[in-house]
């Protein structure tokens, strides 16, 4: 069953077509990779899908609902959450607070927040998530004191904590050491087991080819192909996109 359907989306920055007539779809409970050379438009496509950038043309359907005119936060509430290429954690908040923000949506209104007694369930969920990426000992540390790789893991589990069904990870393996990379890999596979759908942008090809069931390739803002990792790796168009035409 199709969960995300992207239809002919386009975005222009001045004279530059960052994304042009780009279409693809993603099946529910799958892991899909999005690749392409630098400047192919992958992150712009993420920004368009999550509405952090307004698109010039095209439509996006999630669970058959057209996502027109929805703000980014409303998309998260509907079940689409993302990480960013440049890590966006809350540096002045503790690791626990970073997660509680994503976990305790029932206290978003100030008057409800005023009446809350405790956040036992949320605290225990935060600890559980941190344990999965071995960061539980930093739970009361300010997020700004974490290393780059740890911050990346925190951003990933904070995105998971939103409870979204479709998770978009922008370069989760970049700048992460081999041990942490294993943790990310395991985490993504666990998410699939839990019924989540995952779309990953990544330049680390061995990592992506290992975890993905399908790969979408972009070149110059356009859709190039969508196939299994094995077929994509042998596709002459993909090789030419990365290495140039002979």
């Amino acid at each position, binding site marked *: 069953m199709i969960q995300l359907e992207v239809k002919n989306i386009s975005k222009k920055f001045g004279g530059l077509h960052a994304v042009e007539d780009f279409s693809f779809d993603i099946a529910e409970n799958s892991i899909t990779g999005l690749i392409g050379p630098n400047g192919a438009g992958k992150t712009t496509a993420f920004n368009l899908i999550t509405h952090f950038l307004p698109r010039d043309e095209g439509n996006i359907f999630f669970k058959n609902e057209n996502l027109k005119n929805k703000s980014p936060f409303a998309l998260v509430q509907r079940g689409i959450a993302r990480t960013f290429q440049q890590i966006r*954690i809350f540096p002045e908040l503790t690791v626990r607070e970073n997660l509680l923000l994503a976990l*305790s949506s029932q206290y978003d*209104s100030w008057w409800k927040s005023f009446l809350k007694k405790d956040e036992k369930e949320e605290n225990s969920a935060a600890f559980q998530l941190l344990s999965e990426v071995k960061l539980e000992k930093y739970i009361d540390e300010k997020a700004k004191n974490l290393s780059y790789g740890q911050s990346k893991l925190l951003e990933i589990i904070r995105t998971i904590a939103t409870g979204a069904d479709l998770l978009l990870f922008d370069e989760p393996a970049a700048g992460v050491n081999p041990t942490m990379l294993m943790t990310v890999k395991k985490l993504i596979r666990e998410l699939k087991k839990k019924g989540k759908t995952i779309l990953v942008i990544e330049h680390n090809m061995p990592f992506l080819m290992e975890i993905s069931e399908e790969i979408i390739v972009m070149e110059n803002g356009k859709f190039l192909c969508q196939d299994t990792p094995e077929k994509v790796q042998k596709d002459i168009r993909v090789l030419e996109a990365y290495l140039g035409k002979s």
Partner: protein
Amino acid sequence: MLEYIFSLIIITLIWTLLAQSYNLSFGLTGLFNLGHIIFYGIGAYTAAILNTRYGWGFFTNIAMGAIVSGIFAAGFGILTLRLSGHYLAVATLGAAMISTVIVTNWVGLTNGPLGIRGISEPILWGFTIQADSLSFVILMLGIVGFCFFLLYKIFHSPFGRILRAIKDDEIAVQAIGKDSFKAKIWSLILSAAFAGVAGVLYSHYRLFLDPTIFALPEIITLILMVVVGGRGNFLGALLGTILVIFIGEMPRFIGFPDNIIGASRNILYAVLLIGTMFWKPRGLFSFFEK
């Protein structure tokens, strides 16, 4: 002498409430709003007008000051909070300037530059509470203390956590499914409501009100209190306010001639602000932060 001490305590209490209300929107949420003094002025004028024209009492006026300032803040926020950083600062400073002009020229409502006289003192169970008396100090302590309790709860609630996150990274707040604009509006409304209460307290203490309450030096003093104490730091803003008022009163204690007290106070404020920015940019009381 005793009257002077009572007066100093009362003024300090009013300023601590005003500064803490500003700390909610400016310090905790990171809204660089230079028009906060408008909400203080609106609260003060609401009390002055309702009291002198319609005979409304002190306690009703506290509620009305908070409500009117809060409603005004909602409109003000919808118009300005799409902006951020310096753009927000310029827009809100402009609004503060315009509000002074409106209050000065809307003579029918505010009596213009002549101000409003004859505001009554608070009456509690039939007893009039004289300004600069111990009873007035106790009353102020009770009201400001209750407001501080509410503000403390807001600062340390999950909603307060969202506001702190907005100060860190508003885009990331949206990325975890929070309506950051709505949270900012509520931050401004709550902040304005407490500033409105501070304005009501001022009106019923001074018993006279004129447009100078909106003046630029008041905004600068307010920013000074929060920045010196530490933006977003609850205890810091409280201690910062007390420190600024104490330093402001120093020339009088030392025995400076009356004609140079104002100027020397400004010099001391400037030294304090520059010193804080240079040595303790997170505030003199940043060690109280978690």
